[in-house]
């Protein structure tokens, strides 16, 4: 996929920031949040090619778009999430709804529909989920029956119900997944088609600026040319093909909203004086509520960028990587938001401060586009296959590479990451030998350990680079310290939790403790408090009190 040059991307991000500053102040967000109201005028302005044209990022140049790559879309999604996750979700739904067309549409369909989406500022919705089919789309109940005229299929009659559809009540165009005689297929359904009606706007915990509604399709006539790809049965493949990519966008949401919460907490902590000194000076505060989350978010960033780079480099799928990115960034962001409320104390618990809203909003990122538990399962499945295929070498080989990196660039957590990977390899092997993956709990927990160890390795590699990417707002000392803190934590939690997992499911743990090199994991923890001190100081310097 093509990408935008750094200067153009920077200008686009600046324009988005400026627009939000001018048009969407916190008071307005708060009011819309309270009223549970979708700001249609703002979304239309954001889609206006004279004002922003943010949806054009998803549309190739030949159809009137600006051909954004995965990295560009990640950056814009992160920025949108920093503004408001509800608005971000409204934009994302258009991205998502456009995806089946981008992936599976014929040339004529792309020409017609992508051009219309670009020019007519169409809000799009993605209609996959049903009351009884979430991540298990095979249970799809919505049906599409042939309409035959003179022996030729001229259209379909679509009947069924969709649920939790973002932009459901406000979209102009819907991509609807339905079971056709030839299998699951995507259909383009326009607002106002006879028999098609959105249900009520849901009253949600967060992202209340995002319109969410169910859809009723009662014998809706859809012309045959609206079958995406003009071929039945490709729907699930088309949906699966983009998961690596769409989950990366949600990962960017978790990162953006989490980073916003982090910055607000860090700025606040310098102003709030307790017992004579600001909270930002107290380890009991920073090392619990701030620093670990900051390290996790930066780790997630490195993994998102790594995955975006691979997708932009032409790789396809990357479902496991997309899941690791989403899982780490959204869970990390969610925990940051939770602790940002804690960090602001009583103020954080009021609606006068945006962290209260961020905390409610960000939770959805752990749910939509596949819950965190579906991510754990996906991650486990993907890597378990690798473990078996390589006869247990998958993580051991990576650990060797990380140790080699450590020899070249010490101080980026590469050795700790190697310890995490080795421990992980040993745990997975023990699980294989003792057949422990018959327990679903073991498989999901492995998913979590895999994510931590792989992200630690990725962060160490990124921190070892000579020159950092445009998103890194910390100097080398700070970013390397963050990579060390995260890798130590990954090594320790992989070893301890992995051991507990095996001990809890098996009769005995064999020599797992030796294989994991627990002693080295312990020794590696040295210096962690000093590193956290450094990170706390740098955070304060980077996000000064206003």
């Amino acid at each position, binding site marked *: 996929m093509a990408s935008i040059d750094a200067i*153009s991307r920077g200008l686009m991000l600046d*324009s988005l920031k400026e627009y939000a500053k001018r048009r969407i102040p916190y008071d307005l967000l708060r009011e819309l949040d309270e009223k549970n109201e979708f700001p249609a005028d703002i979304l239309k302005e954001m889609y206006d090619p004279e*004002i*922003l*044209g943010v949806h*054009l990022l998803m549309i190739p140049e030949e159809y009137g778009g*600006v*051909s954004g790559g995965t990295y560009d879309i990640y950056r814009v999604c992160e920025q949108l999430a920093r503004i408001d996750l509800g608005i971000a979700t409204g934009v994302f739904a258009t991205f998502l709804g456009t995806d089946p067309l981008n992936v599976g549409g014929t040339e004529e369909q792309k020409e017609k529909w992508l051009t219309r989406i670009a020019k007519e500022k169409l809000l799009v919705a993605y209609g996959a989920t049903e009351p009884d089919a979430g991540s298990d789309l095979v249970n799809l109940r919505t049906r599409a029956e042939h309409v035959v005229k003179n022996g030729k299929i001229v259209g379909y009659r679509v009947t069924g119900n969709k649920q939790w559809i973002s932009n459901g009540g406000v979209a102009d165009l819907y991509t609807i997944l339905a079971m056709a005689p030839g299998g699951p297929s995507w259909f383009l359904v326009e607002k106002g088609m006879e028999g098609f009606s959105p249900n009520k706007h849901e009253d949600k915990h967060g992202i209340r600026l995002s319109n969410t509604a169910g859809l009723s399709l009662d014998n809706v006539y859809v012309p045959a040319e609206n079958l995406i790809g003009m071929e039945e049965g490709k729907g699930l493949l088309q949906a699966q093909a983009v998961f690596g990519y769409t989950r990366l966008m949600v990962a960017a949401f978790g990162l953006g909203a989490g980073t916003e919460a982090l910055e607000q907490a860090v700025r606040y902590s310098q102003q709030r004086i307790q017992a004579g000194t600001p909270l930002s000076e107290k380890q009991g505060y920073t090392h619990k509520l701030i620093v670990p989350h900051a390290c996790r978010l930066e780790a997630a960033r490195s993994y998102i960028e790594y995955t975006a780079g691979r997708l932009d480099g032409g790789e396809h799928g990357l479902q496991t990587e997309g899941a690791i990115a989403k899982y780490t960034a959204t869970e990390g962001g969610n925990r940051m938001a939770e602790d940002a409320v804690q960090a602001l104390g009583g103020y954080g618990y009021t609606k006068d401060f945006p962290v209260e809203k961020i905390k409610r909003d960000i939770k959805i990122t752990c749910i939509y586009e596949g819950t965190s538990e579906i991510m754990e399962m996906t991650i486990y499945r993907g890597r378990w296959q690798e473990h078996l295929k390589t006869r247990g070498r998958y993580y051991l080989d990576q650990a060797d590479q990380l140790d080699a990196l450590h020899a070249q660039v010490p101080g980026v957590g590469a050795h700790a990451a190697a310890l995490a990977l080795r421990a992980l390899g040993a745990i997975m092997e023990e699980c294989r030998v003792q057949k422990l993956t018959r327990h679903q709990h073991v498989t999901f927990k492995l998913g979590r350990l895999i994510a931590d160890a792989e992200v630690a390795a990725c962060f160490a590699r990124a921190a070892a680079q000579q020159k950092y990417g445009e998103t890194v707002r910390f100097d080398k000392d700070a970013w390397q310290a963050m990579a060390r803190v995260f890798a130590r934590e990954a090594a320790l939690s992989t070893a301890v939790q992995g051991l507990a997992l095996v001990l809890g499911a098996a009769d005995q743990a064999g020599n797992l403790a030796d294989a994991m090199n627990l002693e080295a994991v312990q020794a590696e923890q040295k210096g962690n408090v000093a590193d956290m001190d450094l990170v706390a100081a740098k955070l304060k310097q980077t996000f000064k009190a206003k």
Partner: protein
Amino acid sequence: MNIAVLIKQVPDSTEVKINPETGTLIRAGVPSILNPYDHYALEAALELKRKHNFKVTVVSMGPPQAKAVVQLALALGADEGVLLSDMAFAGSDTWATSYALAKGIKKLGKMDIIFAGMQAIDGDTAQTGPAVAQQLGIPQITFCEHVEVDGRRILARKQIDGGHELLEARPSVLITMIMGKDWAPKHPSFPAVHASLKKPFHVWSAADVGAEAQYLGLKGSPTQVNKIYPPPQREKAAMFSGSGQQGVEKILEVLKAEHFIGE
């Protein structure tokens, strides 16, 4: 008419801090922006382009990363962009800078109006625009807030103490702009940014514009920065409490003690 706009990339001054030990600006991590006065001047030029279909060319001088402000101007509607970028320019003061800019403008051909912001928010000298006029040997009108064109007449409204002054000029003239209220600085849409990549954009070296080394950089600069330092922090105010009468007496006492008033 042909219009040139002189623009500069500056650090966002709301985020700049001075290192108290070295006396230099801490620029690391500080975002760069288009100098706000130049942004206003650019909007004034683009307004004339909309009304009269003039051609607008932006000219900047700076390191390679200053391409960003030139591209921003193109995305906002300028027709052509020039960045003067060369190690030979480094360290130039306002006079050496105006020499280089004038050389760049001459290479572009005759300009009927040259706009510049009244000053840059990093150096605050307000010299570069006027010095370019001097280098080119053309008249200048400074501190304007609005410019109209009627045929060959260029009408500038200038802010003066307690009122406005209306001035008229014929091409060529250089006009520096304050930040008026007639145009709000705009930001380009995504497709406008994308389309700006197709507009002509030149990066010119000193040799490209025929600028001679002796007039450039530190060597060609009659002024040099001696020291930059933050203003000394104000001492803490003394606070007194008590009734109004007591307060007045206390303040009188202090003023006398500090010899602000006599006994």
